[in-house]
C-alpha cells in the first residue's frame, strides 16, 4: 500500500468561510504593526488633537463663562461644534492618517514582492483580488482608528451635549464626517499600496506616498500660477477631497472646481491606482 | 614564506551578542581547501572576513601578506563568489562582468574579452546578452563564479560553488578548480557535499560553532583522531577464518562479517599493528583481495568531530 494511504488522512472538519479566511491577513498584519514602536507612537500622537477638540467642545457647550465674554457669535458656534469645527478636526487627522499610511503601507506589499512571497500566497485559496482587499482592509482598519472613530465619538459628544433637536438637524455632519474620512482613507490606502507594489522597496515606497501628495500639490500650485486660474486645484487630490468635505459638512465652499469635478477626478485617480496594483500583483514575472 | 599563505590569527567576530567565529587561527597553503561544517558554524563569516566584507572584532587576517582593510590591493588578487543569490537585475551577464573588469584598469575591449573568456569557461555564452533577472538559479550561480574568476585572481574564495549546478557543469567546474590550484593559487571553498569535498580537496578545515575543529589533509586529520577506531573493509575468501585470526590481536575492537561471507569490516585502534598483523595473516596463506580504509573521508571526520558535538 502506498505510504500516503497508511498514515495520511485529509482534514474533514469544519472549514471557515471565504470572508472569514480573508480576515487572516489583516489580523496578522495588525498584530505585527502594533508591535512596532513607531506605529504605536504615531497612533498615540494622533490622539492628542481629538482630545484637544473634546476639551474645546466641553468648554464650548458647558461653561456659562462664554456668554459673559464678548466673543463673536461665529466663534461660539465654532467652538460649540459646527461644520467648520469638524472640518478643522478632519483636516488635522487626515495629516496624521497620511503619515501613518506612509509608515505602515509599504510594509504591506513591498516585502512580499521583494522576497518573492506572492507565489506562496497565491498557491493557497486566495485570489489576487482577495489579497489586495485584505491588504486594503489592514490599512483602512489602522487609519480608521485615528480618523472616523475619534471623529464619531466627538460627534456623539456634541450631540449628547446639544440634545436630540440638534442631532435631528445636524446628523448630516456626522454622516459627512464618516463618509469624508472613508474617502480619504480609501485614497491614501490605495496610494500606499500601489506605491509599495510599484517600487518593491519598503523604504522608497514610503517616500512615494509623500511624494504623491506633495508633488501633486506643487503641480496644482504652478498650474494655478501659470494659467492664472483656480482650476489648477483639480490636480491636487488632497484639495479635491477637502472640497468634497466642504459639501458634505454643508459649509461655504472656496472658489474653484465644484464637487462633481472633484469626485470625477478622485474616482479616476483611484481607478488608476487600482490598475497599477492589479498589474504589479503577479505571482510570476516574465522577463524578456 | 607566510607571504604565500592565507593566515588568520586569533580572529573573532561578534554579531551582537552571538559569537560568529571564535579565536580562529589557521594558515591555508595554496591548493584546494574546503571549509566543512554545519549551517551556522561560521563558514560564510570566515569567507566574508577574508574578503573584507565584514571586519573582525579581534585578531588579524593576512591574505598573501595583504590585509582585507586594503581592498584596492586585496581585490586585485582575490575573487569571491558569495552565496547571496542576487545579481543586478539591470544588466546582462556580459555587461556585468565587463563593468567589474573596467575597474581593474583594462580598457573596454580587453575587459570584454576577459569577460567573454570567463563566461565561456562556465558555459554562459548563450545567455551573455540576456538580462540577469531572466537567468535560472544555476545560471546565476555560474555568473557569480565567472565574476570571481574573470580577473584571474590568486586567491579564489567560493561559498558553496557547486550548489545548483547540473552534473555536467559540476564536473567542468571541479576541473577548473583543480586546474587553478595546480597553478599554485589558493582555492578556498565551502561545501556540504562531502563526497565532492573528499574528491577535490587537498586540505580540509572542519568548523563548528565558530571554532576550528580540525584542519589539514584528510588522512592526517584522520590519523590524529585517536578516540575513534579506524575502520577498514577487507575483501577475502575465507572471511570467517581471517576474522578468527584477527580477533587474537588486542588492538581489534570490532569485526563485522559481510552477508556474502567474503568481506569484513574491521575496527582497530592501532593502524600500524593492524597492517603488520594483516601482513602476517596474508603470509600465512590466506588470500586477501583488497583492503580499503572505510572512514578516511570527510563524511566520517564530520561525523566523528562535529556530529558528536550535537
Amino acid at each position: 500500500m502506498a505510504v500516503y494511504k497508511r498514515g495520511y488522512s485529509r482534514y474533514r472538519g469544519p472549514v471557515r468561510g471565504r470572508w472569514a479566511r480573508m480576515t487572516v491577513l489583516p489580523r496578522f498584519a495588525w498584530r505585527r504593526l502594533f508591535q512596532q514602536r513607531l506605529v504605536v507612537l504615531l497612533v498615540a500622537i494622533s490622539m492628542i488633537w481629538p482630545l484637544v477638540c473634546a476639551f474645546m467642545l466641553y468648554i464650548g457647550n458647558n461653561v456659562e463663562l462664554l456668554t459673559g465674554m464678548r466673543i463673536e457669535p461665529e466663534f461660539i458656534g465654532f467652538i460649540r461644534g459646527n461644520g467648520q469645527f469638524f472640518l478643522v478636526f478632519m483636516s488635522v487627522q487626515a495629516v496624521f492618517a497620511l503619515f501613518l499610511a506612509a509608515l505602515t503601507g509599504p510594509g504591506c506589499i513591498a516585502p512580499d514582492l521583494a522576497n518573492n512571497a506572492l507565489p506562496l500566497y497565491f498557491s493557497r485559496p486566495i485570489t489576487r483580488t482577495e489579497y489586495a482587499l485584505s491588504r486594503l482592509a489592514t490599512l483602512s482598519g489602522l487609519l480608521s482608528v485615528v480618523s472616523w472613530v475619534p471623529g464619531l465619538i466627538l460627534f456623539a459628544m456634541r450631540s449628547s451635549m446639544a440634545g436630540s433637536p440638534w442631532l435631528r438637524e445636524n446628523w448630516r455632519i456626522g454622516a459627512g464626517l464618516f463618509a469624508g474620512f472613508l474617502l480619504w482613507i480609501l485614497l491614501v490606502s490605495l496610494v500606499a499600496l500601489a506605491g509599495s507594489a510599484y517600487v518593491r522597496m519598503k523604504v522608497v515606497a514610503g517616500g512615494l506616498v509623500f511624494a504623491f501628495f506633495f508633488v501633486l500639490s506643487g503641480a496644482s500650485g504652478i498650474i494655478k500660477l501659470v494659467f492664472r486660474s483656480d482650476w489648477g486645484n483639480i490636480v491636487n487630490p488632497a484639495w479635491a477631497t477637502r472640497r468634497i468635505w466642504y459639501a458634505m459638512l454643508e459649509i461655504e465652499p472656496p472658489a474653484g472646481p465644484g464637487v462633481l469635478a472633484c469626485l470625477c477626478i478622485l474616482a479616476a485617480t483611484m481607478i488608476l491606482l487600482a490598475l497599477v496594483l492589479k498589474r504589479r500583483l503577479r505571482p510570476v514575472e516574465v522577463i524578456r | 614564506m607566510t607571504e604565500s599563505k592565507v593566515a588568520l590569527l586569533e580572529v573573532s567576530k561578534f554579531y551582537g551578542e552571538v559569537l560568529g567565529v571564535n579565536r580562529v587561527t589557521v594558515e591555508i597553503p595554496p591548493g584546494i581547501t574546503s571549509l566543512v561544517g554545519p549551517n551556522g558554524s561560521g563558514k560564510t563569516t570566515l569567507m566574508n572576513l577574508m574578503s573584507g566584507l565584514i571586519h573582525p572584532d579581534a585578531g588579524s587576517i593576512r591574505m598573501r601578506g595583504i590585509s582585507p582593510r586594503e581592498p584596492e590591493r586585496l581585490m586585485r588578487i582575490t575573487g569571491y563568489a558569495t552565496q547571496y543569490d542576487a545579481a543586478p537585475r539591470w544588466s546582462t551577464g556580459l555587461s556585468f562582468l565587463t563593468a567589474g573588469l573596467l575597474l581593474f584598469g583594462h580598457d573596454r575591449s580587453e575587459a570584454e574579452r576577459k569577460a567573454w573568456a570567463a563566461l565561456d569557461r562556465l558555459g554562459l555564452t548563450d545567455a551573455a546578452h540576456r538580462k540577469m533577472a531572466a537567468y535560472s538559479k544555476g545560471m546565476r550561480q555560474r555568473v557569480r563564479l565567472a565574476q570571481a574568476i574573470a580577473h584571474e585572481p590568486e586567491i579564489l574564495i567560493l561559498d558553496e560553488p557547486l550548489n545548483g549546478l547540473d552534473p555536467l557543469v559540476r564536473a567542468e567546474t571541479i576541473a577548473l578548480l583543480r586546474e587553478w590550484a595546480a597553478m599554485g593559487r589558493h582555492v578556498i571553498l565551502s561545501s556540504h557535499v562531502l563526497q565532492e569535498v573528499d574528491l577535490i580537496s587537498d586540505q580540509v578545515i572542519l568548523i563548528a560553532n565558530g571554532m576550528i575543529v580540525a584542519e589539514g589533509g584528510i588522512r592526517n586529520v584522520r590519523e590524529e583522531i585517536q578516540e575513534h577506531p579506524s575502520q577498514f573493509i577487507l575483501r577475502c575468501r575465507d572471511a570467517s577464518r581471517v576474522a578468527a585470526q584477527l580477533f587474537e590481536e588486542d588492538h581489534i575492537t570490532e569485526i563485522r562479517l559481510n552477508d556474502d561471507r567474503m568481506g569484513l569490516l574491521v575496527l582497530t585502534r592501532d593502524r600500524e599493528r593492524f597492517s603488520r598483523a594483516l601482513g602476517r595473516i596474508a603470509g600465512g596463506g590466506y588470500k586477501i583481495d583488497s583492503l580499503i580504509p572505510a572512514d578516511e573521508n570527510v563524511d566520517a571526520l564530520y561525523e566523528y568531530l562535529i556530529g558528536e558535538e550535537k
Partner: protein
Amino acid sequence: MKQLSWWQQARTIARIEMRRAFFSRRAFWVYGLALFPTVIFLGHFAQVKFQRVRLSSTETVRPALLDSLREGETEEAVLERLGKAPVDYDWERRQRILDREDATGITTHGIEPAVTARYIRLNVIRPTVTADRSARIGEFEVYGNSGVNLALGRPASGSAPCSDGEGPEKAFDGDPRNIWCSGARSKYLQVDLGEALPVSRIVLKHASAAGKPKELDTGAFSIEASTDNRRFETVVNLTGARLVDEITRYRRMSYFDGKRRADLQFVEGKLASIDIEPLLNFEEDRSIFAGVFQLFYLRLAIFFGCLGIFMNLFRGEVLDRTLHFWFLAPAKREVLLLGKYGAGLIASVAIFTGGALVCFAVLMGFHDPAEVQSYLNGAGMRHVFWYATAAVMGCVGYGSVFLAAGLLLRNPIIPAAVLLGWESINSFLPEFLQKLSVLHYLQSLCPVPVPMDDSAPGLLRLLVAPAAPSSRIGAILGLILLTAFLLSIAALAIRRMEVSYSTE
C-alpha cells in the same frame, strides 16, 4: 593592465553608475518631474495662441482707441467707435429681492375673507435673500376685527432656535427687538390663540425692524391657519413679503489691439468695468517662472528627484543585495563613494538644471524676440546663470544629504520626511535655525523674487521669502561646506560598513 589612479577609478565607477541613473525605468519619473513645468508653460502658451486666434477673428483696433474707453459709455457708442467685437456675449441675472420701498421691515397681510382659527402657523420658505439660512422674526402679530394683538403673550412653538435666547416666545412678547431665530431645516413658528377666533390681518416685523441688516428679512413664507392643529389651510402665500424680480442685463465684449486684450463689461447697457491686459506679459511670465522655480523645482522636483537618485546609490543596492559586488572591486571605499556621488550629481544636475533651463527657454521662445533680446542683453544672462547655479547647488546639497542618510540610516525616509517638514516651516524659525537648511541657501541664490499679490495669505508669503537672505557667495560656500561635511561622515561610515544582508 595598468593601475588606475583613484581619480580614474572614481570616473570609471561614475560612468558605470550613470548609465543606470540616466536610463533605468526609475529615471522616467525623474525626467517627468523635471519637464512638467515646461509642459505646463507650453499648455499656457497654447491657450494664449488660441485666444489670439479667437480675438483676431475681426480686425484689430488701434491701441489709442482702447485707451480712450471710459466707464459709463453706452454699448452703442463703443460699438460705433471700435466696431464689432470678436468676443461678444450677454446674459441676464435674475434676483429676487425685497421691494426697496419697504423700508421699515414690517409687512402687513390682509386675509379676506377672514378665517376662524385657533392655531396660526408661519412657514418660512426662504429665510433671507442671502446665503444666511436662519429665519428671524421680531414680532408675529395676529389681529381680528379689533386692534388687539390676539397672539401677544400666547403659547408659542416653533422649530429649533439658533440659541437659547431666541425661542419662539420672543416673537410674541411685544418687543420686536427680541427676535425668534431658527436655523433648522424646516422653519416654522406657531401660536395658539387659545380658542378659535376670527383672524383678518397678520403683521410681521422682520429682522430689519429689530435693528438687523435688511438682507436678513424673510424672503418668502406662507401663513397657515387651523382650528384643530391638524388640518391647516394656507391663508397667506409665497408672495408674502413683497419680493420682486430684479433683472440685470450684462454684456461682455473683448477687443484686441494686436498686443493687448480689453475685456469690457456692461451692466444695463453702460460700461461698468474695463480690464486691459497684454496677452503676453514677459515680465509677468518671468516672475511666474521665478515662482515655479522656487515652489516646484527647488522644493519638490529637486528634493524628491535627488531623494530617488541618491538614495538608490547605496540603500538601493543594499536592498537589492548587490552592494557587495562594489565592495569586491579593487577600489578604496572612499573612491567608491566619490564615484557614486559623482554619478548621482552629474545625472541630477543634467536632468534638473537642464529641465529648468529648457523651461526658461520655452518661456522666452513665446515672447517677442526683440523684448527677449533686450532682456538677455541686460539682466537676462545673469538670471539664467543664477537659476542654473541654484539648481546645481540644490543637487549638490540635497544629494549629499540623501547619500549620507542612505548610508547611515536603515530607513532614510524618516529623515527625508523630517527635512521636508523642516524646510516647510523654515520661515517661522529663528534666524540661527533658519541657516540649518538647504532651501534657505538656495532661496538666496534665486535671482528673482517670487510674485505675491496682496491677496495671497501672509503664510504663503512667509514660505517663499527668506527672512534674512544670506549673500550669494556665502550661500554657495555654506552649501559646499555642508556637502563636504556630509561626504566625510559618509566616507567614515562606508569604511566601517559591513555587508550582511538581513531579511528586511
